[in-house]
Protein backbone atom coordinates (compact mmCIF):
# COMPACT_ATOMS: atom_id res chain seq x y z
CA UNK A 1 0.00 0.00 0.00
CA UNK A 2 2.57 2.56 1.19
CA UNK A 3 4.93 1.66 -1.63
CA UNK A 4 2.21 2.13 -4.20
CA UNK A 5 1.35 5.52 -2.76
CA UNK A 6 4.97 6.62 -3.03
CA UNK A 7 5.61 5.05 -6.39
CA UNK A 8 3.11 6.79 -8.62
CA UNK A 9 0.80 9.80 -8.40
CA UNK A 10 -2.74 8.72 -7.59
CA UNK A 11 -4.86 8.11 -10.67
CA UNK A 12 -7.04 11.06 -11.59
CA UNK A 13 -10.24 9.13 -10.93
CA UNK A 14 -9.47 8.61 -7.26
CA UNK A 15 -8.28 12.22 -6.94
CA UNK A 16 -11.62 13.37 -8.29
CA UNK A 17 -13.37 11.00 -5.92
CA UNK A 18 -11.35 12.35 -2.99
CA UNK A 19 -12.22 15.91 -4.03
CA UNK A 20 -15.90 15.01 -4.25
CA UNK A 21 -15.76 13.47 -0.78
CA UNK A 22 -13.92 16.51 0.63
CA UNK A 23 -16.49 18.83 -0.95
CA UNK A 24 -19.36 16.73 0.44
CA UNK A 25 -17.82 16.78 3.93
CA UNK A 26 -17.34 20.58 3.77
CA UNK A 27 -20.94 21.00 2.60
CA UNK A 28 -22.03 18.62 5.34
CA UNK A 29 -20.32 20.72 8.03
CA UNK A 30 -21.94 23.86 6.59
CA UNK A 31 -25.35 22.21 6.51
CA UNK A 32 -25.00 21.03 10.11
CA UNK A 33 -24.10 24.58 11.21
CA UNK A 34 -27.29 25.89 9.57
CA UNK A 35 -29.21 23.02 11.19
CA UNK A 36 -27.81 23.91 14.63
CA UNK A 37 -28.75 27.58 14.16
CA UNK A 38 -32.26 26.57 13.10
CA UNK A 39 -32.68 24.29 16.14
CA UNK A 40 -31.42 27.02 18.45
CA UNK A 41 -33.75 29.69 17.03
CA UNK A 42 -36.82 27.43 17.01
CA UNK A 43 -36.34 26.27 20.59
CA UNK A 44 -35.78 29.88 21.69
CA UNK A 45 -39.18 30.69 20.18
CA UNK A 46 -40.92 28.15 22.41
CA UNK A 47 -43.60 29.73 24.53
CA UNK A 48 -42.77 30.20 28.18
CA UNK A 49 -40.00 32.18 29.84
CA UNK A 50 -37.02 29.97 30.70
CA UNK A 51 -36.33 31.84 33.93
CA UNK A 52 -39.96 31.40 34.98
CA UNK A 53 -39.81 27.66 34.21
CA UNK A 54 -36.76 27.31 36.45
CA UNK A 55 -38.00 29.42 39.37
CA UNK A 56 -41.63 28.34 39.28
CA UNK A 57 -43.52 29.74 42.27
CA UNK A 58 -40.37 31.35 43.72
CA UNK A 59 -40.31 33.86 40.86
CA UNK A 60 -40.15 37.53 41.89
CA UNK A 61 -39.08 40.36 39.57
CA UNK A 62 -35.68 40.48 41.31
CA UNK A 63 -34.93 36.71 41.23
CA UNK A 64 -36.10 36.57 37.60
CA UNK A 65 -33.73 39.40 36.62
CA UNK A 66 -30.80 37.79 38.46
CA UNK A 67 -31.41 34.39 36.91
CA UNK A 68 -31.81 35.86 33.40
CA UNK A 69 -28.44 37.49 33.83
CA UNK A 70 -26.89 34.24 35.13
CA UNK A 71 -28.31 32.25 32.20
CA UNK A 72 -27.20 34.96 29.77
CA UNK A 73 -30.78 35.53 28.59
CA UNK A 74 -30.26 39.31 28.60
CA UNK A 75 -27.56 39.05 25.94
CA UNK A 76 -28.23 39.30 22.18
CA UNK A 77 -29.50 36.09 20.59
CA UNK A 78 -26.46 35.55 18.31
CA UNK A 79 -24.18 35.77 21.34
CA UNK A 80 -26.29 33.17 23.15
CA UNK A 81 -26.09 30.95 20.05
CA UNK A 82 -22.31 31.35 19.95
CA UNK A 83 -21.96 30.37 23.60
CA UNK A 84 -24.24 27.37 23.11
CA UNK A 85 -22.47 26.18 19.95
CA UNK A 86 -19.03 26.58 21.55
CA UNK A 87 -20.26 24.47 24.46
CA UNK A 88 -21.74 21.83 22.12
CA UNK A 89 -18.43 21.52 20.28
CA UNK A 90 -16.75 20.80 23.63
CA UNK A 91 -19.45 18.28 24.61
CA UNK A 92 -21.18 20.69 27.01
CA UNK A 93 -24.89 20.92 26.27
CA UNK A 94 -25.77 23.11 29.26
CA UNK A 95 -27.87 22.10 32.26
CA UNK A 96 -31.41 20.77 32.39
CA UNK A 97 -34.01 23.32 33.46
CA UNK A 98 -35.98 20.64 35.28
CA UNK A 99 -33.40 19.17 37.65
CA UNK A 100 -30.25 21.26 37.13
CA UNK A 101 -28.16 18.28 36.01
CA UNK A 102 -25.69 18.66 33.13
CA UNK A 103 -27.49 17.57 29.95
CA UNK A 104 -24.56 15.43 28.82
CA UNK A 105 -24.67 13.50 32.10
CA UNK A 106 -28.47 13.24 31.95
CA UNK A 107 -28.42 11.84 28.43
CA UNK A 108 -25.34 9.56 28.62
CA UNK A 109 -27.33 6.51 29.72
CA UNK A 110 -30.18 7.35 27.33
CA UNK A 111 -27.80 7.62 24.39
CA UNK A 112 -26.24 4.27 25.25
CA UNK A 113 -29.69 2.66 25.41
CA UNK A 114 -30.80 4.12 22.04
CA UNK A 115 -27.50 3.17 20.45
CA UNK A 116 -27.79 -0.38 21.77
CA UNK A 117 -31.34 -0.61 20.41
CA UNK A 118 -30.35 0.64 16.95
CA UNK A 119 -27.16 -1.42 16.69
CA UNK A 120 -28.81 -4.66 17.84
CA UNK A 121 -31.67 -4.05 15.39
CA UNK A 122 -29.22 -3.41 12.52
CA UNK A 123 -27.11 -6.49 13.36
CA UNK A 124 -30.20 -8.70 13.20
CA UNK A 125 -31.72 -6.90 10.23
CA UNK A 126 -28.77 -7.12 7.83
CA UNK A 127 -28.26 -10.92 7.63
CA UNK A 128 -32.03 -11.55 7.53
CA UNK A 129 -32.46 -8.99 4.73
CA UNK A 130 -29.67 -10.63 2.73
CA UNK A 131 -31.15 -14.08 3.21
CA UNK A 132 -34.74 -13.09 2.41
CA UNK A 133 -33.67 -10.96 -0.56
CA UNK A 134 -31.47 -13.68 -2.06
CA UNK A 135 -34.10 -16.39 -1.61
CA UNK A 136 -36.77 -14.15 -3.18
CA UNK A 137 -34.48 -13.36 -6.11
CA UNK A 138 -33.69 -17.07 -6.61
CA UNK A 139 -37.41 -17.89 -6.62
CA UNK A 140 -38.40 -14.85 -8.63
CA UNK A 141 -42.14 -14.69 -9.40
CA UNK A 142 -42.82 -17.89 -7.48
CA UNK A 143 -44.86 -18.20 -4.28
CA UNK A 144 -42.13 -17.08 -1.85
CA UNK A 145 -41.24 -14.07 -3.96
CA UNK A 146 -44.86 -13.04 -4.49
CA UNK A 147 -45.57 -13.47 -0.80
CA UNK A 148 -42.53 -11.40 0.15
CA UNK A 149 -43.44 -8.61 -2.29
CA UNK A 150 -47.04 -8.51 -1.10
CA UNK A 151 -46.01 -8.44 2.57
CA UNK A 152 -43.45 -5.72 1.94
CA UNK A 153 -46.03 -3.48 0.24
CA UNK A 154 -48.13 -3.62 3.41
CA UNK A 155 -45.34 -3.49 6.01
CA UNK A 156 -43.32 -0.75 4.26
CA UNK A 157 -46.44 1.40 4.24
CA UNK A 158 -47.21 0.83 7.92
CA UNK A 159 -46.01 3.50 10.39
CA UNK A 160 -43.70 2.05 13.08
CA UNK A 161 -46.08 2.78 15.92
CA UNK A 162 -48.72 0.66 14.17
CA UNK A 163 -46.28 -2.21 13.49
CA UNK A 164 -45.20 -2.06 17.13
CA UNK A 165 -48.79 -1.96 18.39
CA UNK A 166 -49.69 -5.01 16.31
CA UNK A 167 -46.63 -6.83 17.69
CA UNK A 168 -47.69 -5.94 21.24
CA UNK A 169 -51.17 -7.30 20.51
CA UNK A 170 -49.65 -10.51 19.10
CA UNK A 171 -46.84 -11.18 21.57
CA UNK A 172 -47.44 -9.00 24.60
CA UNK A 173 -51.13 -8.86 25.42
CA UNK A 174 -54.02 -10.15 23.38
CA UNK A 175 -52.87 -13.36 21.70
CA UNK A 176 -49.77 -14.55 23.53
CA UNK A 177 -48.48 -13.18 26.83
CA UNK A 178 -44.85 -13.82 26.06
CA UNK A 179 -43.23 -10.41 26.39
CA UNK A 180 -43.68 -7.24 28.44
CA UNK A 181 -45.50 -4.55 26.40
CA UNK A 182 -43.42 -1.91 28.19
CA UNK A 183 -39.60 -1.93 28.15
CA UNK A 184 -38.55 -1.38 31.73
CA UNK A 185 -34.79 -0.95 32.11
CA UNK A 186 -33.60 0.38 35.49
CA UNK A 187 -31.39 3.49 35.19
CA UNK A 188 -27.74 2.51 35.02
CA UNK A 189 -28.42 -1.01 33.73
CA UNK A 190 -27.33 -2.03 30.25
CA UNK A 191 -30.31 -2.87 28.01
CA UNK A 192 -28.46 -6.05 27.07
CA UNK A 193 -28.97 -7.25 30.67
CA UNK A 194 -32.73 -7.07 30.04
CA UNK A 195 -33.27 -8.97 26.80
CA UNK A 196 -37.01 -9.40 27.42
CA UNK A 197 -37.36 -5.61 27.42
CA UNK A 198 -35.42 -5.34 24.14
CA UNK A 199 -37.27 -7.95 22.06
CA UNK A 200 -40.37 -5.99 21.02
CA UNK A 201 -38.69 -2.65 20.18
CA UNK A 202 -35.93 -4.48 18.27
CA UNK A 203 -38.48 -6.64 16.49
CA UNK A 204 -40.47 -3.55 15.43
CA UNK A 205 -37.38 -1.98 13.85
CA UNK A 206 -36.24 -5.29 12.32
CA UNK A 207 -39.61 -6.07 10.72
CA UNK A 208 -39.80 -2.62 9.13
CA UNK A 209 -36.15 -2.67 8.04
CA UNK A 210 -36.09 -6.19 6.58
CA UNK A 211 -39.06 -5.50 4.33
CA UNK A 212 -37.33 -2.43 2.90
CA UNK A 213 -33.76 -3.67 2.71
CA UNK A 214 -34.79 -7.17 1.58
CA UNK A 215 -36.47 -5.62 -1.46
CA UNK A 216 -33.24 -3.82 -2.41
CA UNK A 217 -31.18 -7.00 -1.93
CA UNK A 218 -33.65 -8.87 -4.11
CA UNK A 219 -33.45 -6.40 -6.99
CA UNK A 220 -29.65 -6.12 -6.72
CA UNK A 221 -29.41 -9.91 -6.93
CA UNK A 222 -31.73 -10.19 -9.88
CA UNK A 223 -29.58 -7.63 -11.69
CA UNK A 224 -26.34 -9.35 -10.72
CA UNK A 225 -27.57 -12.82 -11.67
CA UNK A 226 -28.67 -11.70 -15.12
CA UNK A 227 -25.34 -9.96 -15.82
CA UNK A 228 -22.94 -11.29 -18.43
CA UNK A 229 -20.22 -12.58 -16.14
CA UNK A 230 -22.68 -14.67 -14.14
CA UNK A 231 -24.05 -16.09 -17.41
CA UNK A 232 -20.46 -16.89 -18.43
CA UNK A 233 -19.79 -18.57 -15.09
CA UNK A 234 -22.91 -20.66 -15.66
CA UNK A 235 -21.72 -21.67 -19.12
CA UNK A 236 -18.38 -22.68 -17.56
CA UNK A 237 -20.46 -25.09 -15.48
CA UNK A 238 -20.01 -23.51 -12.06
CA UNK A 239 -22.61 -24.54 -9.48
CA UNK A 240 -25.24 -22.13 -8.18
CA UNK A 241 -23.79 -21.76 -4.63
CA UNK A 242 -20.38 -20.96 -6.07
CA UNK A 243 -21.79 -18.41 -8.51
CA UNK A 244 -23.77 -16.82 -5.70
CA UNK A 245 -20.81 -16.56 -3.35
CA UNK A 246 -18.07 -15.64 -5.80
CA UNK A 247 -19.83 -13.54 -8.41
CA UNK A 248 -23.32 -12.41 -7.53
CA UNK A 249 -22.83 -11.53 -3.84
CA UNK A 250 -19.92 -9.08 -4.21
CA UNK A 251 -21.66 -7.29 -7.06
CA UNK A 252 -25.07 -7.21 -5.41
CA UNK A 253 -23.54 -5.70 -2.26
CA UNK A 254 -22.58 -2.58 -4.22
CA UNK A 255 -26.07 -1.05 -4.21
CA UNK A 256 -27.04 -2.70 -0.90
CA UNK A 257 -24.38 -1.12 1.35
CA UNK A 258 -25.48 2.51 0.81
CA UNK A 259 -29.07 1.32 1.28
CA UNK A 260 -28.08 -0.20 4.63
CA UNK A 261 -26.77 3.21 5.66
CA UNK A 262 -30.13 4.69 4.65
CA UNK A 263 -31.92 2.11 6.78
CA UNK A 264 -29.63 2.99 9.70
CA UNK A 265 -30.65 6.63 9.24
CA UNK A 266 -34.27 5.57 9.07
CA UNK A 267 -33.84 3.56 12.29
CA UNK A 268 -32.37 6.58 14.06
CA UNK A 269 -35.23 8.72 12.75
CA UNK A 270 -37.75 6.17 14.00
CA UNK A 271 -36.48 6.05 17.58
CA UNK A 272 -38.78 8.84 18.78
CA UNK A 273 -41.99 6.95 18.06
CA UNK A 274 -40.74 3.43 18.80
CA UNK A 275 -39.24 4.43 22.15
CA UNK A 276 -42.36 6.37 23.07
CA UNK A 277 -44.51 3.35 22.21
CA UNK A 278 -42.54 0.94 24.42
CA UNK A 279 -41.53 3.56 27.03
CA UNK A 280 -37.99 2.47 26.17
CA UNK A 281 -35.61 4.71 28.16
CA UNK A 282 -33.67 6.18 25.22
CA UNK A 283 -33.24 9.66 23.75
CA UNK A 284 -36.45 9.46 21.70
CA UNK A 285 -38.63 8.97 24.77
CA UNK A 286 -36.48 11.60 26.55
CA UNK A 287 -37.28 14.07 23.77
CA UNK A 288 -41.04 13.69 24.17
CA UNK A 289 -40.61 14.15 27.96
CA UNK A 290 -38.41 17.22 27.47
CA UNK A 291 -40.95 18.75 25.07
CA UNK A 292 -43.69 18.14 27.65
CA UNK A 293 -41.51 19.85 30.33
CA UNK A 294 -40.26 22.66 28.03
CA UNK A 295 -36.72 21.67 29.00
CA UNK A 296 -35.00 23.69 26.24
CA UNK A 297 -31.35 22.60 26.68
CA UNK A 298 -32.41 18.94 26.63
CA UNK A 299 -34.61 19.46 23.54
CA UNK A 300 -31.79 21.27 21.74
CA UNK A 301 -29.27 18.55 22.57
CA UNK A 302 -31.47 15.63 21.51
CA UNK A 303 -32.74 17.23 18.30
CA UNK A 304 -29.20 18.18 17.32
CA UNK A 305 -27.91 14.66 18.10
CA UNK A 306 -30.64 12.91 16.12
CA UNK A 307 -30.45 15.36 13.20
CA UNK A 308 -26.64 15.15 13.01
CA UNK A 309 -26.62 11.34 13.13
CA UNK A 310 -29.44 11.12 10.60
CA UNK A 311 -27.73 13.60 8.30
CA UNK A 312 -24.31 11.93 8.49
CA UNK A 313 -25.77 8.47 7.79
CA UNK A 314 -27.66 9.85 4.80
CA UNK A 315 -24.51 11.59 3.56
CA UNK A 316 -22.53 8.34 3.89
CA UNK A 317 -25.25 6.57 1.91
CA UNK A 318 -24.99 9.22 -0.83
CA UNK A 319 -21.20 9.03 -0.94
CA UNK A 320 -21.17 5.22 -1.02
CA UNK A 321 -23.71 5.26 -3.82
CA UNK A 322 -21.29 7.56 -5.62
CA UNK A 323 -21.74 10.57 -7.85
CA UNK A 324 -25.05 12.36 -7.84
CA UNK A 325 -26.99 12.04 -4.60
CA UNK A 326 -29.71 9.42 -4.84
CA UNK A 327 -33.36 10.24 -4.32
CA UNK A 328 -34.87 9.03 -1.10
Amino acid at each position, binding site marked *: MAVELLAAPAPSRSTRRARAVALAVAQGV*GTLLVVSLLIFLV*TQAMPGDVARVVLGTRATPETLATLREQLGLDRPIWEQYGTWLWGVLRGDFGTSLVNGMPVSELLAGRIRNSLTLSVVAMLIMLPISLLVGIVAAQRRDRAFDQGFLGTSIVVN*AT*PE*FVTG*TVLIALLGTTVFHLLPPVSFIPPGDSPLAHPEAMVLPVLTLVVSGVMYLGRLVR*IAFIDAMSSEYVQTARLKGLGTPRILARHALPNALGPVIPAASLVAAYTV*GGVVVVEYLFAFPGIGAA*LVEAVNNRDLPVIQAIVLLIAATYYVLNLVADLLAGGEPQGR
Partner: protein
Amino acid sequence: MSAPPRTEAVAASREPSARGAGLRRLWAAPRVRWGVLLLAATTAFAFLGGLLAPFDPSQPVGAPYAPPSPGIWLGTDQLGRDVLSRVLHGGAYLAWMAPTSAVLAVAIGAAVGLAAAYWRGWVDTLLMRAMDVVLAFPGILLTLLFVAVFGPLPWLLVTLVVVALVPGVARVIRGAALPVIGREYVQWAKAVGMPSATILRTELLPNVSSPLFVELGVRLMWAVGILASMSFIGYGIQPPAADWGLMVSENRTGLGIQPLAVLAPVVMIVVYTVSGNLIAEGAARVIARTEGRAE
Protein backbone atom coordinates in the same frame (compact mmCIF):
# COMPACT_ATOMS: atom_id res chain seq x y z
CA MET B 1 -30.01 6.23 -13.13
CA SER B 2 -29.89 8.00 -16.46
CA ALA B 3 -31.57 6.12 -19.26
CA PRO B 4 -30.05 6.63 -22.69
CA PRO B 5 -32.17 8.93 -24.83
CA ARG B 6 -34.49 6.76 -26.86
CA THR B 7 -35.97 7.78 -30.16
CA GLU B 8 -39.45 6.52 -29.35
CA ALA B 9 -39.53 8.66 -26.20
CA VAL B 10 -38.66 11.70 -28.30
CA ALA B 11 -41.36 10.79 -30.79
CA ALA B 12 -43.89 10.10 -28.05
CA SER B 13 -43.35 13.45 -26.37
CA ARG B 14 -44.08 15.27 -29.64
CA GLU B 15 -47.37 13.43 -29.82
CA PRO B 16 -50.20 15.60 -28.43
CA SER B 17 -51.82 12.67 -26.61
CA ALA B 18 -48.58 11.52 -24.95
CA ARG B 19 -49.74 12.43 -21.49
CA GLY B 20 -53.04 10.60 -21.90
CA ALA B 21 -51.19 7.51 -23.11
CA GLY B 22 -48.89 7.65 -20.08
CA LEU B 23 -51.84 7.82 -17.70
CA ARG B 24 -53.60 4.96 -19.51
CA ARG B 25 -50.48 2.83 -19.12
CA LEU B 26 -50.36 3.61 -15.39
CA TRP B 27 -54.06 2.81 -15.01
CA ALA B 28 -53.46 -0.55 -16.70
CA ALA B 29 -51.24 -1.61 -13.78
CA PRO B 30 -53.33 -3.64 -11.30
CA ARG B 31 -51.52 -2.19 -8.27
CA VAL B 32 -52.32 1.36 -9.36
CA ARG B 33 -55.99 0.42 -9.76
CA TRP B 34 -56.14 -1.25 -6.37
CA GLY B 35 -54.37 1.68 -4.79
CA VAL B 36 -56.77 4.23 -6.28
CA LEU B 37 -59.74 2.06 -5.32
CA LEU B 38 -58.56 1.74 -1.70
CA LEU B 39 -57.78 5.45 -1.55
CA ALA B 40 -61.26 6.32 -2.82
CA ALA B 41 -62.86 3.90 -0.35
CA THR B 42 -60.87 5.24 2.62
CA THR B 43 -61.59 8.84 1.65
CA ALA B 44 -65.32 8.14 1.30
CA PHE B 45 -65.29 6.30 4.64
CA ALA B 46 -63.50 9.17 6.36
CA PHE B 47 -65.74 11.94 4.99
CA LEU B 48 -69.11 10.17 4.95
CA GLY B 49 -68.61 7.69 7.80
CA GLY B 50 -69.60 10.26 10.41
CA LEU B 51 -73.09 10.43 8.87
CA LEU B 52 -73.57 6.70 9.44
CA ALA B 53 -72.26 6.66 13.01
CA PRO B 54 -74.89 5.16 15.35
CA PHE B 55 -73.75 7.21 18.38
CA ASP B 56 -72.22 10.56 19.31
CA PRO B 57 -68.46 9.86 19.20
CA SER B 58 -67.80 11.94 22.31
CA GLN B 59 -70.51 10.55 24.61
CA PRO B 60 -70.17 7.35 26.68
CA VAL B 61 -72.62 4.59 25.77
CA GLY B 62 -71.52 1.97 28.28
CA ALA B 63 -68.80 0.84 30.65
CA PRO B 64 -65.15 1.48 29.64
CA TYR B 65 -63.58 -1.25 27.48
CA ALA B 66 -66.85 -3.16 27.13
CA PRO B 67 -66.62 -6.04 24.64
CA PRO B 68 -68.78 -6.00 21.47
CA SER B 69 -72.52 -6.44 22.06
CA PRO B 70 -75.64 -6.08 19.88
CA GLY B 71 -75.86 -2.43 18.80
CA ILE B 72 -72.31 -1.69 19.99
CA TRP B 73 -70.63 -3.83 17.36
CA LEU B 74 -67.01 -2.96 18.14
CA GLY B 75 -67.39 -2.45 21.90
CA THR B 76 -66.41 0.69 23.78
CA ASP B 77 -63.17 2.60 24.37
CA GLN B 78 -61.34 3.72 27.53
CA LEU B 79 -64.10 6.23 28.39
CA GLY B 80 -66.98 3.96 27.39
CA ARG B 81 -67.54 5.65 24.00
CA ASP B 82 -68.70 3.64 20.96
CA VAL B 83 -65.61 2.44 19.04
CA LEU B 84 -67.49 2.05 15.74
CA SER B 85 -68.79 5.63 15.87
CA ARG B 86 -65.32 6.93 16.70
CA VAL B 87 -63.72 4.99 13.86
CA LEU B 88 -66.37 6.33 11.47
CA HIS B 89 -65.58 9.90 12.60
CA GLY B 90 -61.86 9.35 13.14
CA GLY B 91 -60.57 9.91 9.60
CA ALA B 92 -62.10 13.33 9.02
CA TYR B 93 -58.93 15.32 9.80
CA LEU B 94 -56.49 12.85 8.29
CA ALA B 95 -58.46 12.55 5.04
CA TRP B 96 -58.05 16.23 4.17
CA MET B 97 -54.71 16.88 5.85
CA ALA B 98 -52.76 13.99 4.33
CA PRO B 99 -53.77 14.40 0.64
CA THR B 100 -53.41 18.20 0.90
CA SER B 101 -49.88 17.78 2.30
CA ALA B 102 -48.95 15.20 -0.34
CA VAL B 103 -50.26 17.21 -3.32
CA LEU B 104 -48.64 20.45 -2.14
CA ALA B 105 -45.34 18.68 -1.38
CA VAL B 106 -45.25 17.05 -4.82
CA ALA B 107 -46.17 20.32 -6.59
CA ILE B 108 -43.55 22.39 -4.74
CA GLY B 109 -40.96 19.61 -4.84
CA ALA B 110 -41.44 19.15 -8.59
CA ALA B 111 -41.06 22.91 -9.20
CA VAL B 112 -37.85 22.98 -7.13
CA GLY B 113 -36.44 19.85 -8.77
CA LEU B 114 -37.20 21.00 -12.31
CA ALA B 115 -35.78 24.47 -11.67
CA ALA B 116 -32.59 23.02 -10.17
CA ALA B 117 -32.14 20.60 -13.09
CA TYR B 118 -32.93 23.21 -15.76
CA TRP B 119 -30.81 26.14 -14.58
CA ARG B 120 -28.04 24.13 -12.83
CA GLY B 121 -25.23 26.41 -11.54
CA TRP B 122 -25.90 28.55 -8.48
CA VAL B 123 -29.68 28.04 -8.64
CA ASP B 124 -29.12 24.29 -8.37
CA THR B 125 -26.57 24.65 -5.56
CA LEU B 126 -28.73 27.05 -3.56
CA LEU B 127 -31.93 25.03 -3.91
CA MET B 128 -30.40 21.64 -3.21
CA ARG B 129 -28.36 22.88 -0.21
CA ALA B 130 -31.56 24.29 1.25
CA MET B 131 -33.18 20.89 0.67
CA ASP B 132 -30.23 19.28 2.51
CA VAL B 133 -30.90 21.35 5.62
CA VAL B 134 -34.49 20.10 5.76
CA LEU B 135 -33.37 16.54 4.99
CA ALA B 136 -31.25 16.54 8.15
CA PHE B 137 -34.50 16.31 10.14
CA PRO B 138 -36.48 13.08 10.17
CA GLY B 139 -40.08 14.09 9.32
CA ILE B 140 -41.48 13.40 12.77
CA LEU B 141 -38.65 15.27 14.52
CA LEU B 142 -39.17 18.39 12.38
CA THR B 143 -42.92 18.33 12.96
CA LEU B 144 -42.55 17.73 16.72
CA LEU B 145 -40.06 20.59 17.08
CA PHE B 146 -42.33 23.20 15.48
CA VAL B 147 -45.58 21.89 16.95
CA ALA B 148 -43.95 22.22 20.39
CA VAL B 149 -43.41 25.92 19.63
CA PHE B 150 -46.66 26.90 17.95
CA GLY B 151 -49.14 24.27 19.17
CA PRO B 152 -50.86 21.43 17.31
CA LEU B 153 -52.87 23.47 14.78
CA PRO B 154 -54.10 21.47 11.76
CA TRP B 155 -52.87 23.96 9.13
CA LEU B 156 -49.48 24.11 10.87
CA LEU B 157 -49.23 20.31 10.80
CA VAL B 158 -50.01 20.33 7.07
CA THR B 159 -47.36 23.02 6.45
CA LEU B 160 -44.74 21.07 8.42
CA VAL B 161 -45.49 17.81 6.64
CA VAL B 162 -45.18 19.65 3.31
CA VAL B 163 -41.82 21.11 4.37
CA ALA B 164 -40.64 17.67 5.51
CA LEU B 165 -41.67 15.98 2.25
CA VAL B 166 -40.61 18.58 -0.37
CA PRO B 167 -36.84 17.78 -0.38
CA GLY B 168 -37.33 14.11 -1.20
CA VAL B 169 -39.60 14.97 -4.14
CA ALA B 170 -37.20 17.67 -5.33
CA ARG B 171 -34.26 15.24 -5.41
CA VAL B 172 -36.18 12.56 -7.30
CA ILE B 173 -37.63 14.96 -9.88
CA ARG B 174 -34.29 16.70 -10.36
CA GLY B 175 -32.72 13.28 -10.99
CA ALA B 176 -35.47 12.36 -13.46
CA ALA B 177 -35.28 15.72 -15.29
CA LEU B 178 -31.50 15.85 -15.74
CA PRO B 179 -31.31 13.25 -18.56
CA VAL B 180 -34.33 14.81 -20.31
CA ILE B 181 -32.65 18.21 -20.49
CA GLY B 182 -29.81 16.81 -22.58
CA ARG B 183 -32.21 15.58 -25.25
CA GLU B 184 -32.39 17.23 -28.67
CA TYR B 185 -35.85 18.69 -28.49
CA VAL B 186 -35.14 20.50 -25.21
CA GLN B 187 -31.88 21.87 -26.57
CA TRP B 188 -33.77 22.83 -29.75
CA ALA B 189 -36.46 24.61 -27.73
CA LYS B 190 -33.75 26.52 -25.87
CA ALA B 191 -31.97 27.39 -29.10
CA VAL B 192 -35.06 28.86 -30.78
CA GLY B 193 -35.60 31.04 -27.71
CA MET B 194 -38.69 29.41 -26.22
CA PRO B 195 -39.33 30.96 -22.78
CA SER B 196 -37.93 28.88 -19.92
CA ALA B 197 -41.29 28.61 -18.20
CA THR B 198 -42.82 27.16 -21.39
CA ILE B 199 -39.98 24.66 -21.79
CA LEU B 200 -40.35 23.56 -18.17
CA ARG B 201 -44.11 23.14 -18.53
CA THR B 202 -44.45 21.65 -22.01
CA GLU B 203 -41.18 19.74 -22.49
CA LEU B 204 -39.90 18.73 -19.05
CA LEU B 205 -43.02 18.23 -16.95
CA PRO B 206 -44.72 15.67 -19.27
CA ASN B 207 -41.47 13.65 -19.31
CA VAL B 208 -41.38 13.31 -15.53
CA SER B 209 -45.09 12.53 -15.15
CA SER B 210 -44.50 8.88 -14.21
CA PRO B 211 -42.02 9.66 -11.39
CA LEU B 212 -44.46 12.36 -10.26
CA PHE B 213 -47.16 9.74 -9.96
CA VAL B 214 -44.82 7.53 -7.91
CA GLU B 215 -44.03 10.51 -5.68
CA LEU B 216 -47.72 11.27 -5.12
CA GLY B 217 -48.27 7.74 -3.83
CA VAL B 218 -45.11 7.66 -1.69
CA ARG B 219 -45.68 11.11 -0.18
CA LEU B 220 -49.34 10.32 0.59
CA MET B 221 -48.12 7.25 2.45
CA TRP B 222 -45.57 9.32 4.39
CA ALA B 223 -48.03 12.13 5.11
CA VAL B 224 -50.54 9.71 6.62
CA GLY B 225 -47.71 8.08 8.58
CA ILE B 226 -46.32 11.33 10.00
CA LEU B 227 -49.76 12.78 10.84
CA ALA B 228 -50.98 9.58 12.50
CA SER B 229 -47.69 9.27 14.44
CA MET B 230 -48.01 12.87 15.63
CA SER B 231 -51.51 12.15 16.92
CA PHE B 232 -50.16 9.02 18.57
CA ILE B 233 -47.41 10.82 20.52
CA GLY B 234 -49.86 13.54 21.59
CA TYR B 235 -48.80 16.40 19.31
CA GLY B 236 -51.32 15.97 16.50
CA ILE B 237 -55.11 16.07 16.66
CA GLN B 238 -56.09 16.69 20.29
CA PRO B 239 -58.69 14.91 22.43
CA PRO B 240 -61.65 14.72 22.72
CA ALA B 241 -61.71 14.62 18.90
CA ALA B 242 -62.04 11.18 17.35
CA ASP B 243 -58.86 10.44 15.37
CA TRP B 244 -57.38 7.09 14.32
CA GLY B 245 -53.83 7.78 15.54
CA LEU B 246 -55.14 9.24 18.77
CA MET B 247 -57.46 6.25 19.31
CA VAL B 248 -54.47 3.86 19.18
CA SER B 249 -52.75 5.94 21.82
CA GLU B 250 -55.83 6.35 24.04
CA ASN B 251 -56.84 2.71 24.10
CA ARG B 252 -53.53 0.87 24.06
CA THR B 253 -53.50 0.29 27.83
CA GLY B 254 -56.70 -1.72 27.32
CA LEU B 255 -55.22 -3.79 24.48
CA GLY B 256 -55.47 -6.97 26.57
CA ILE B 257 -59.14 -6.37 27.49
CA GLN B 258 -60.69 -4.67 24.45
CA PRO B 259 -58.29 -5.09 21.49
CA LEU B 260 -60.90 -3.86 18.97
CA ALA B 261 -60.61 -0.30 20.30
CA VAL B 262 -57.01 -0.32 19.04
CA LEU B 263 -57.19 -2.70 16.09
CA ALA B 264 -60.11 -0.97 14.33
CA PRO B 265 -58.24 2.36 13.92
CA VAL B 266 -55.03 0.41 13.14
CA VAL B 267 -56.75 -1.29 10.21
CA MET B 268 -57.96 2.08 8.87
CA ILE B 269 -54.48 3.65 9.09
CA VAL B 270 -52.89 0.66 7.36
CA VAL B 271 -55.47 0.60 4.56
CA TYR B 272 -54.88 4.32 3.99
CA THR B 273 -51.06 4.11 3.87
CA VAL B 274 -51.14 0.92 1.79
CA SER B 275 -53.33 2.65 -0.81
CA GLY B 276 -50.57 5.24 -1.30
CA ASN B 277 -47.87 2.57 -1.45
CA LEU B 278 -49.81 0.49 -4.01
CA ILE B 279 -50.08 3.51 -6.31
CA ALA B 280 -46.36 4.19 -5.91
CA GLU B 281 -45.32 0.56 -6.43
CA GLY B 282 -47.58 0.11 -9.43
CA ALA B 283 -46.31 3.29 -11.10
CA ALA B 284 -42.68 2.39 -10.33
CA ARG B 285 -43.24 -1.01 -11.93
CA VAL B 286 -44.62 0.60 -15.09
CA ILE B 287 -41.54 2.84 -15.29
CA ALA B 288 -39.20 -0.12 -14.73
CA ARG B 289 -40.95 -2.08 -17.50
CA THR B 290 -40.73 0.73 -20.04
CA GLU B 291 -37.04 1.21 -19.24
CA GLY B 292 -36.41 -2.53 -19.43
CA ARG B 293 -35.19 -2.86 -15.86
CA ALA B 294 -36.02 -5.65 -13.41
CA GLU B 295 -38.80 -4.83 -10.97
